[in-house]
């Protein structure tokens, strides 16, 4: 079966003061029906830009798709009309953002905001939209939805607002839900509730989920496959369990081991954390013909500094863009 979303050799260029930089450089991936994948990496690596490109929301006049295709159900989103794109956005692909505090309009009740989306995209009448909005609030587990539907955003907690955002995103039963750091601004107990909700909704509706995060733990909980991004390029891709068990890219490995994870049986021993020295290169260095991670890599050799790594495939499903993937 054809994948739901297929991105082919996507290159996105961003105008900067110093010139044009490829923020996304030759990215290809697929997303199946009902599948859940995660994009991981530090800030400035192009995770959010990928999401914006799929949504057709690249910053106008600054960013553009330079080459490649984004095939959604066989339709190339990089060439369709703005009108069609607007239609797809919200109806078939929707997105939730990191900041539930600012994503809602403070002067309308949450009910009005959900109903508005339903009327615009589903052609529902006033009454039907309102009834549906109540149902959606119930589906995202907001207690007492019949009453809370008249609340203004400021009357809700951060977690509840994110639930409302999810309700809006799911209002038109999209095929893909893009979640850009959906729980970063929330407390962990609330994050656990939101993850639980997203998992259940995915099971019930069959919506595919693309989650963008920097938290390997969240990836392990939420996704089947992950794509590790570094400096606009795909560093590694594969099933989450395989990558966590044996990462084939030094960057992935660093990302997993630089964070102190909760362990099951804690002992007195405390290792130093593995560090990834340095920081993500600036946009000016993007697109150079070398491994962009080489400056921070513990296993760097001359070859890494001279040529962009080819992709090595492991077991037919794990891919790593590293000259030394074999040895990692």
């Amino acid at each position: 079966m054809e994948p739901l979303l297929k991105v082919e050799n996507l290159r996105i260029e961003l105008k900067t003061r110093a010139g044009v930089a490829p923020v996304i450089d030759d990215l290809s991936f697929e997303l199946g029906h009902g599948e859940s994948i995660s994009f991981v990496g530090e800030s400035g690596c192009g995770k959010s830009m990928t999401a914006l490109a799929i949504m057709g929301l690249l910053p106008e006049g600054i960013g553009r798709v330079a080459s490649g295709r984004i095939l959604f159900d066989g339709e190339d989103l990089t060439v369709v009309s703005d009108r069609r794109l607007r239609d797809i956005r919200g109806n078939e692909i929707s997105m939730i953002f990191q900041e539930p505090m600012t994503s809602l309009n403070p002067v309308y009740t949450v009910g009005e905001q959900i109903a508005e989306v339903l009327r615009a995209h589903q052609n529902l009448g006033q009454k039907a939209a309102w009834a549906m909005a109540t149902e959606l609030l119930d589906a995202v587990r907001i207690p007492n939805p019949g009453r809370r539907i008249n609340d203004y955003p400021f009357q809700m907690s951060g977690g509840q607002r994110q639930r409302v955002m999810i309700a809006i995103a799911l209002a038109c039963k999209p095929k893909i839900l893009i979640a850009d750091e959906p729980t970063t601004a929330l407390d962990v107990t609330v994050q656990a509730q939101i993850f639980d909700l997203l998992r259940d909704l995915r099971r019930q509706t069959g919506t595919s989920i693309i989650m963008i995060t920097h938290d390997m733990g969240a990836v392990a909980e939420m996704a089947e496959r992950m794509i590790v991004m570094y400096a606009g390029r795909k560093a590694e891709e594969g099933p989450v369990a395989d990558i966590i068990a044996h990462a084939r890219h030094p960057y992935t490995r660093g990302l997993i081991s630089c964070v102190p994870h909760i362990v099951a049986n804690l002992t007195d021993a405390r290792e130093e954390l593995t560090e990834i020295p340095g920081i993500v290169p600036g946009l000016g260095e993007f697109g150079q013909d070398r491994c962009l991670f080489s400056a921070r890599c513990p296993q760097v050799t001359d070859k890494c500094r001279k040529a962009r790594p080819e992709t090595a495939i492991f077991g037919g499903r794990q891919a790593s863009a590293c000259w030394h993937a074999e040895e990692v």
Partner: protein
Amino acid sequence: MSQLLDVRNLSVRFPVGRKGAGWGQVSYLTAVDDISFTVRKGETLAIVGESGSGKTTAALAIAQLVGGETSGRVMLDGQDIMPANRDQLRAMRRRVQVIFQDPYSSLNPRKRAEEIVREPLDNLTDKPAAEKQEIVDRLFEAVGLRPEQKRLFPHQFSGGQRQRIGIARALSTQPDVIICDEPVSALDVAVQAQILNLLRRLQSEFGLTYVFISHDLGVVQHMCDSVAVMYMGKIVEHTDRLSLFNNPLHPYTTALLSAVPSVDPTLRDQSRRILIPGDPPDPLNLPAGCRFVSRCPVAQTRCRELAPELTGNGTDHRTACHLVDANLVSPMQSVREAGL
């Protein structure tokens, strides 16, 4: 080892105006409610909690940096350091320093890096200029910054480097206690490790004592020697590192730990998610009994009526829960087993 820092009955409340309240009527939001804890010399106490738990307010109250009404006693080496006058305040500031959460907003954008690091020395000591310069030079090296970066301004540094400047500033007066207020939560994951390792290295090098505020249990597990878990202004559990993580007793601690997403598949299977429903209560309208009662899966009638005291029942593992006794068995045990 001796207790270096001993905080007793610390409370902080802020006056708030409420709609409907008449003139002259002031109601209070109690951000920190009668908490006590101790930290041993050279060790790290982590104060953990979610937003609104009062962890940051409590820590900043120790350093006299909150605007609300503070009461209680803070003893440093057996000496009350709640200052009565300006000289005592200066003495206290020399001994208690703070590393702030956001390295982007905690450095004055109009000052050079070396001026920022030197500021506590200028304000709090009478050292000659040459000696201050020498101290600044040493600190730059200790936190991993190059000498030629001394003249740069904050916006010329990356987030991690800025936090190094903040750390150097906190070290400059050789304080006894450093309060680390979420020192890595504003940094990128890969940079967090650099700063955490630096903090631990400096601790063993200079024998520093940290009060480490964090919401990230992974970071806490890595950094702390003992932990105090806060919920709605109260400490609900206070014990050493191993006891807390291996045998969490308070239902809130248990839920908090199980909520952390983990890369460890065995841990994921073992500790089935204990989802606690709902949100924390309104801090201006707290329940009469235990503050966690509205979200607690094992709450009983007495929990609604009587607020539990923080007690160890004769052990060092202190918990504020009616359902924990001297056997140190978590009341969540049954829930966890039912979940499996």
